[in-house]
């Protein structure tokens, strides 16, 4: 049987979900026999190729993240969201009650350690979106593994279900939002 192709992306988040994924212990050896990783922070491959499963960690807060998520959706058959940021907006969405300009000012000018700071204006730096969005408000998401970060157990459950051809819905006893 051909290996299942997987791509993962890490948007606005702390990488905790990927860390939790690496925490699935010996299951990772079984998994390696069944799947192959394409674009992912783990493989450091930067280009998108068509895959079976796309996994998104993190919320969408700037133009680049939006583009990357759309590209992943375009290239995958099933899209799974990992973690509170991708599922609900998470900690990153804290800024959603503030003005974008205030957030930039706070980060680049008002922080105590900043001397003569200025808000970056280079076209090479992706512009912030007005709000931080969970993945499903940008593209269609097929399944969700919430948690901050999701327990390795939850990630394992999600992958096992997907490999068995089912869309995972976490049972209540392993679902966590914290």
């Amino acid at each position, binding site marked *: 049987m051909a290996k299942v192709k997987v791509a993962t992306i890490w948007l606005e988040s702390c990488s905790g979900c990927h860390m939790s994924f690496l925490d699935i212990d010996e299951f990772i050896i079984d998994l390696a026999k069944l799947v192959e990783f394409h674009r992912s922070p783990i493989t450091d491959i930067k280009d998108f190729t068509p895959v079976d499963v796309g996994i998104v960690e993190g919320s969408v807060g700037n133009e680049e993240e939006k583009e990357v998520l759309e590209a992943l959706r375009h290239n995958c058959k099933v899209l799974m*969201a990992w973690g*509170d940021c991708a*599922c*609900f*907006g*998470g*900690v990153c*969405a*804290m800024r*959603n*009650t*503030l003005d974008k300009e205030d957030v930039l000012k706070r980060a680049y000018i008002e922080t105590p350690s900043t001397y003569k700071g200025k808000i970056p204006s280079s076209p090479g730096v992706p512009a912030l979106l007005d*709000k931080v969005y*969970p993945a*499903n*408000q940008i593209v269609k*998401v097929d*399944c*969700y*593994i*919430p948690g*901050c970060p999701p327990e390795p157990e939850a990630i394992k459950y999600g992958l096992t279900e997907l490999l068995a051809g089912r869309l995972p*819905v*976490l*049972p*209540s006893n392993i*679902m*966590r*939002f*914290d």
Partner: protein
Amino acid sequence: MSEITLTINNKQVKGKQGDTVLDICLANGIEVPTLCHYKGLSDVGACRMCLVEIEKERNFVPACTYPARDGQVIRTHTEKLEKYRRLVLELLFTERNHLCAYCVASGDCELQSLAYKYQMDNARYQYSWPDKVTDSSHPFIVLDHNRCVLCGRCIRTCDELAGAHVLDFGKRGWKTNVCADINQPLGESSCISCGGCFQACPTGAIFSKASAYKGKSSECTSVESVCAICGIGCDIKGLVKNNNLVKVESPDMSKPRGLLCEMGRFGILYPPAERVKTPMKRDKKGKLISCSYEEAFETIARNFGKGGTVAGLVSGKASNETLKAFADLMNKTLKSNMVDVLDGDDYRTISRGIAQFNDKAGLEIEAKLEEILSSDTIVVIGANPIKTHPVIGSYIMRAASKNKANLIIIDPLRNPFTFRASVWLKPPEGKKALAIKALGKSILEHGTARTPADKNKSTANFKDIDIKKAAGELGLDVHDIYKAGEILAESNNGIIIYGEGILQYKDPDLITMILNLASLINKEPKTISLKRYGNSRGAWESGLCHSKGSINADLVKGKAAGIYVLLTDDTADSQISTESLKATEFVAVQTSYLSPITALADVVLPSRLWTESKGSYTTIDGIKKSTTPMIKVSGQIKSDADTLQELAGYMKK
């Protein structure tokens, strides 16, 4: 009440007329998810989690507010209902900023656990991200509107259980917020800090500063005990993690004495002063230094054994067991009768006052606290229960708002009740007796059917008063006195509560007069005196109160060679005159905290807190209740009774 039979989920169940559908479901073990329902509060049907399907009804109806009727056929968990419940949850999560990852309630949150139950792994609606404020102006409580689901549990707790009605909904529709008073910061509002709101809050919208992020309930062990602070004897539950008291809750707020107050819920989480951790004695330079129990006992025994009277002072915060050991030490071992309780004057005033009224009665003549709740008229004389005995304050406010009880205040000082009072008489300081007399006469003038004037011996005390003249002397409006008299004459079940404002005069006649007034209202007079300490009544009934009068004057004259002051965890040391300690050669103090009193001591012995001890306490109204230790005592602090008994052993050597 007639019995009704319904079918719920194809099962025949019984209930009674007047039950709601939810009542019957809960009574029959049928689990229906709820969020805005809370035990002991009225139901409002705000959250729509408990929607059920009833045959022949046009729509789904909320079980919590829907009256059950005979023959109803109800289903509680159809596929459609479950779909709707998840939908409700998604709407709640997207309405405000519910981000669990850094929420103080995560793990204890009812909204979160419902989301887990309904496997809500995403929300299909657009998030609103409203810009809500967090109000942290209150010393103990934070009100975070970001986490609020507008279930109204806090509002109903504040109104129906605490009787304060500080919280309510402000603004309308999309802008609706829980607000205090007329939208003031909570810290500047009339909040009485009972903390009922934060216990009732299903999410992290209202939380206690002292408990935040110190541990989830699931990580804590919970110990049920009795609060020993003010003498009401409220049931209390301590949540303990790593031997730290993290949070204080009520085991059941719907029960009498289940509400708790600022002192019980928050006070014990903030240490009032530095702890005394070991026994201490004076070194050669006169500095207090740590020493062993043996050295401390030996020093005390040597000095007390020198001859001369040894006096004893004990706080009404000590448990009955400690009081017993203290009585044994003072009376049997030291053979001293120069012993008194710190609020002994209050006891002498009250007991003499009662004896003048009825020489057989004693403290048993006083009413039970719960009688306040069923009273139709409440007279508060010289007391501010919201400050001294907050749960009694809540009882009064509940009676006033729920039963429309009339409130009559006789006090020159403003207190949180005065704006609710039907009549507020403000006699000048020192003239309460005349005001009480004028009120009694006013009752007689209105006449009471229950106590025919000629048959009630109490009437004699009020006959000769001229109300108009008295009003003039007191500077009161004569109509207020007539109005109060009319209310009391028509009352079927009135009660009088008095406190510090009366007891400060140390005048037994005032107490007798209050009892006489009370017997014009009810045949059996109903009065409650607010006692100062958690176990004042226990201390008074232990026989430790000096029978003749305060021993302070003798102490100041230097009539005692030594004194043993047993404060336990009392910090109200203003009751002890420093002159009396300075006039005494040798001072031993047993206490939990360093204070101006320990500064005058020659030997200091440590004392356990009531939260660390097992002991029995007698409430204001004479009920004995026992505490269970919530935290293990830190270090090598012996129990109070053990300390006293071991000291007695040394004295005998």
